[in-house]
């Protein structure tokens, strides 16, 4: 079957930068899926976009759907033919309905008997027909974060559509979308090359775009921008302050990748580094440059044109940057007139949550909760810095700088605290309090910072959960999932052995009567919420989900301890002896499932195998206790693995369900005690065993 390429371009008014990448991904994958469903999947998919266009190029698309046969079930053979073997009215009627001759009917045999069937050959449609049907539908149904209508009510779509290229093997795929008819032409840059032009196919499209300076491929555009910016930075004797998100944004707001170098008055370099970087990034989408860790008084950003022949683009950008930095400097100097401590009154006016009080209330709670945490961890020397940091934690919310740049919350407070000469652990704790905000972020750098960050988030989680506002689905307006994940990460990475249940219970008490749910209800809903983050984060570290479940099932009062147990399980779980014990554990759990607690009597141990098991289990218990006391869960699990043979032997030679009631109860008591012993660090029954893994082991043990 010959194949062809399909070129699709939608040219429209400027699509918001944040929506471009998700849209092109969805467009390409839906096209692929639809063509796959028609058995005409492309061999290769290329995509591209600029603010004004979405482009997909599919190569190696078959020109027709393959033909296929459709089988229709008819009447039973007995009803279709009379005794003479001549077709009945039922058969002729069926053949007529299917559009075939009665002599072409076939027979099939199934579990109900023999039936006549009509095999109907369906000719595959030309792919161009498939495309003209599915493409407009896919385009219309793309998901956008926000849509609009235009003109007399066209839409909804992200922005008004101006032209459509849809070419399959050089022929226009005919369709209409929002009153625009598909064709073979498009236009270039709205100012520099606005005239329409026609294209013949994918490579012609690329060539004609590139003649107009337009790079449609996103990655190529990003690369070109980065090269030009690195070159410019080199020339200025510095290097870019890295920012992958900013680079992606810059590549999304231009079609022609042009770079602008600007300079600003070096006196602005007295502003903190973070302020300069943020102001340039947020207001001007500009990169800053540094040399030996010091910022240079210049910036780099993009223009949607190749050059700046009159210097006006540079002059304009510099003018705006100068005004923005003047603003920032004004805010900074105003802020410094009032010390953080003197800003306390401002927190009364700042609402944290209408039902949970002001930031002054929150500060009081964080301070007390931090103190409790210090005591729980046995921290003494850190206590003073923690208390001071907690009290100053939220005060930067009253500064002009944070009102202007919310992304600098915490950071600004840290900077002002540092400039006031407060101790390092204090300003760092304030500075780092919102870390980690994303998966790539580190946790707060100091123990004091880690502790206050936890107190702050647990307070928020408990408060919002306490109002019954638990996140559901994608709705999480308070960012509680991120908050819980940050808490879990800080505990794990900071190696902090804190019982989250106890901290949360304390946080509930500190809210007094503000909450609507009882402490028990809050803890019951919060615990699985934290556990989900634990599962996710440990899963990212490469642990199997059942290892995590097994460890979680016996408790999570300290997350570093939990991770040690998961890690130990991970090391031993491939060993066949260990897996044999897992199977035995499942069997034991089954046997004792319904049984009430029994008391073991040594004098009732009768058989040799059960006496052996008893002795071995006592030894195992003391070995496990010793290993756990040393924090060595792995050797604990290894001791359990060594237990496999004696368990095997017991199940082969001893019948637990003996007729004698006393013997039976005593054996159950023995298994109950073994169950307790081997379930201390992990509930082994959670481990999923692939029986193939056990093949190496010579055993007749079976799974009940």
């Amino acid at each position: 079957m010959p194949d062809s390429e399909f070129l699709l371009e939608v040219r429209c008014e400027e699509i918001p930068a944040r929506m471009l990448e998700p849209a092109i991904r969805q467009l390409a994958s839906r096209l692929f899926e639809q063509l796959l469903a028609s058995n005409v999947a492309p061999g290769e998919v290329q995509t591209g976009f600029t603010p004004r266009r979405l482009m997909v190029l599919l190569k190696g698309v078959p020109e027709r759907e393959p033909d296929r046969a459709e089988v229709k079930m008819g009447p039973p053979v007995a009803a279709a033919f009379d005794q003479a073997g001549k077709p009945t009215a039922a058969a002729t009627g069926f053949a007529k309905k299917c559009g075939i001759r009665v002599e072409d009917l076939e027979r099939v045999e199934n579990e109900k008997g023999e039936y006549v069937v009509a095999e109907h050959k369906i000719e595959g449609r030309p792919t161009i027909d498939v495309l003209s049907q599915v493409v407009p539908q896919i385009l219309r149904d793309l998901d956008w974060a926000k849509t609009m209508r235009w003109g007399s009510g066209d839409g909804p779509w992200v922005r008004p559509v101006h032209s459509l290229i849809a070419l399959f093997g050089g022929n226009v795929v005919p369709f209409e979308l929002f009153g625009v008819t598909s064709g073979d032409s498009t236009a270039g840059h709205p100012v520099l090359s606005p005239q329409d032009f026609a294209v013949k196919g994918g490579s012609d499209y690329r060539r004609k775009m590139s003649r107009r300076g337009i790079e449609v491929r996103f990655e190529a555009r990003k690369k070109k921008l980065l090269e030009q910016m690195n070159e410019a930075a080199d020339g200025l004797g510095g290097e870019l302050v890295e920012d992958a998100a900013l680079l992606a944004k810059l590549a999304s707001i231009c079609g022609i990748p042009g770079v602008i170098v600007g300079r600003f008055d070096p006196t602005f370099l007295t502003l903190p580094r973070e302020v300069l970087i943020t102001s340039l990034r947020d207001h001007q989408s500009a990169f800053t440059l540094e040399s030996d860790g010091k910022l240079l008084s210049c910036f780099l950003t993009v223009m949607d044109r190749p050059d700046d022949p009159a210097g006006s683009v540079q002059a304009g950008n510099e003018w705006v940057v100068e005004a923005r930095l003047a603003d920032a400097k004004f805010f900074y100097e105003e802020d410094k007139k009032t010390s953080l401590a003197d800003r306390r009154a401002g927190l009364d006016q700042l609402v944290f949550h209408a039902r949970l009080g002001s930031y002054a209330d929150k500060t009081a709670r964080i301070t007390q909760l931090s103190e409790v945490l210090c005591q729980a961890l046995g921290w003494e020397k850190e206590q003073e810095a923690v208390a001071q940091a907690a009290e100053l934690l939220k005060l930067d919310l009253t500064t002009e700088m944070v009102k202007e740049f919310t992304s600098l919350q915490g950071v600004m407070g840290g900077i002002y605290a540092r400039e006031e000469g407060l101790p390092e652990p204090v300003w760092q704790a304030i500075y780092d309090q919102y870390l980690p905000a994303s998966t790539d972020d580190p946790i707060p750098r100091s123990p004091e910072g880690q502790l206050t960050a936890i107190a702050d988030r647990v307070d928020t989680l408990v408060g919002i959960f306490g109002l019954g506002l638990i996140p559901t689905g994608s709705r999480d307006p308070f960012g509680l999932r991120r908050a819980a994940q940050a808490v879990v990460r800080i505990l794990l990475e900071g190696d902090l052995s804190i019982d989250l249940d106890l901290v949360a219970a304390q946080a509930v008490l500190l809210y007094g009567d503000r909450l609507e749910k009882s402490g028990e209800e809050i803890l019951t809903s919060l615990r699985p919420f934290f556990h989900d983050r634990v599962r996710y984060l440990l899963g990212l570290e490469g642990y199997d989900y059942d290892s995590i479940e097994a460890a979680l099932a016996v408790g999570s009062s300290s997350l570093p301890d939990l991770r040690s147990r998961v890690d130990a399980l991970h090391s031993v779980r491939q060993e066949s002896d260990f897996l044999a014990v897992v199977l035995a554990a499942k069997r034991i759990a089954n046997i004792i499932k319904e049984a009430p607690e029994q008391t073991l009597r040594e004098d009732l141990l009768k058989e040799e195998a059960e006496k052996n098991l008893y002795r071995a289990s006592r030894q195992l218990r003391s070995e496990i206790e010793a290993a756990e006391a040393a924090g060595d869960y792995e050797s604990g699990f290894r001791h359990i693995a060594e237990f496999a043979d004696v368990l095997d032997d017991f199940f082969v030679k001893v019948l637990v369900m003996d007729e004698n009631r006393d013997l039976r109860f005593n054996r159950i008591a023995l298994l109950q005690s073994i169950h307790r012993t081997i379930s201390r660090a992990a509930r082994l029954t959670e481990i999923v065993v692939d029986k193939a893994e056990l093949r190496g082991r010579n055993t007749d043990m079976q799974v009940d």
Partner: protein
Amino acid sequence: MQSFQELILRLSEFWAAQGCVLQQPYDLEVGAGTMHPDTFLRSLGPEPWNVAYVQPSRRPADARYGENPFRLGKHYQFQVILKPAPKEVQRLYIDSLEALGIDLEVHDLRFEEDNWEAPTLGAWGVGWQVMLDGMEITQFTYFQQAGGMDLAPISAELTYGLERITMFLGLSRSVYDIDWVPGGVDYGQVRHQDELEFSKYYFELADVDFLRQQFDGFERESQSCLEQGVVLPAYEFALKCSHAFNVLDSRGAVSVTERVELIKRVRNLAVACAEAFVESREQLGFPLLEAGAKRHA
């Protein structure tokens, strides 16, 4: 250097040539050109409407005693409404910049997402801030809802920030330095005393009790006008409420919860006026529909 008044003249000329009604500012205090009845009310309903005008816009909270070179308690917007938005509205807008003498062959023009929302009007739209060499010079919006009602046809609203554009074209360091008259009276000479005195009024002198009484009174008046079936006066009193609210707000007299409440009261008036306006036009038989048809015939 391009002067402030030349900018107004050229934009007026350009948009008049496109068939816009060259309207004058609304003679009340408003926060933006959008609140002019020729935008807010005329964007409702099916009738076509093209209009352009300058609107002095008051933002009491932005007042800076004439000291900040960029922020003003009152600035001038050049407002254009094209209803329905023609397919080539972006092209028309680009042409208008060229009419201002901006040579786009040497500038960088970009449209960055910026959606507009006016809670007091129950209105929102989708569009961009238009960036010229990294500076925002225009707000470009396709209205989607006004007075809580879905709009059809859709209006395009172009709002040029006149001070900003003039400053930018001359790369002036202060708004007060730009020429109002070419080579003559400058912006500071025309406006500085106004900024200074109104800052003093907004931040220090405005009588809070008096303004609250005004707010209540204007609200009652608006409601009673609506009851009597006169929608334009009703809308005027809604605008007066809105301004009273803005001054109270700049005076620091509005708490967080009261803020929500007052905004809701203004919004209720605006929504009621919007509905009444559409009804009143309907009773008149949407006369501009016919006029449009006549003209095209």
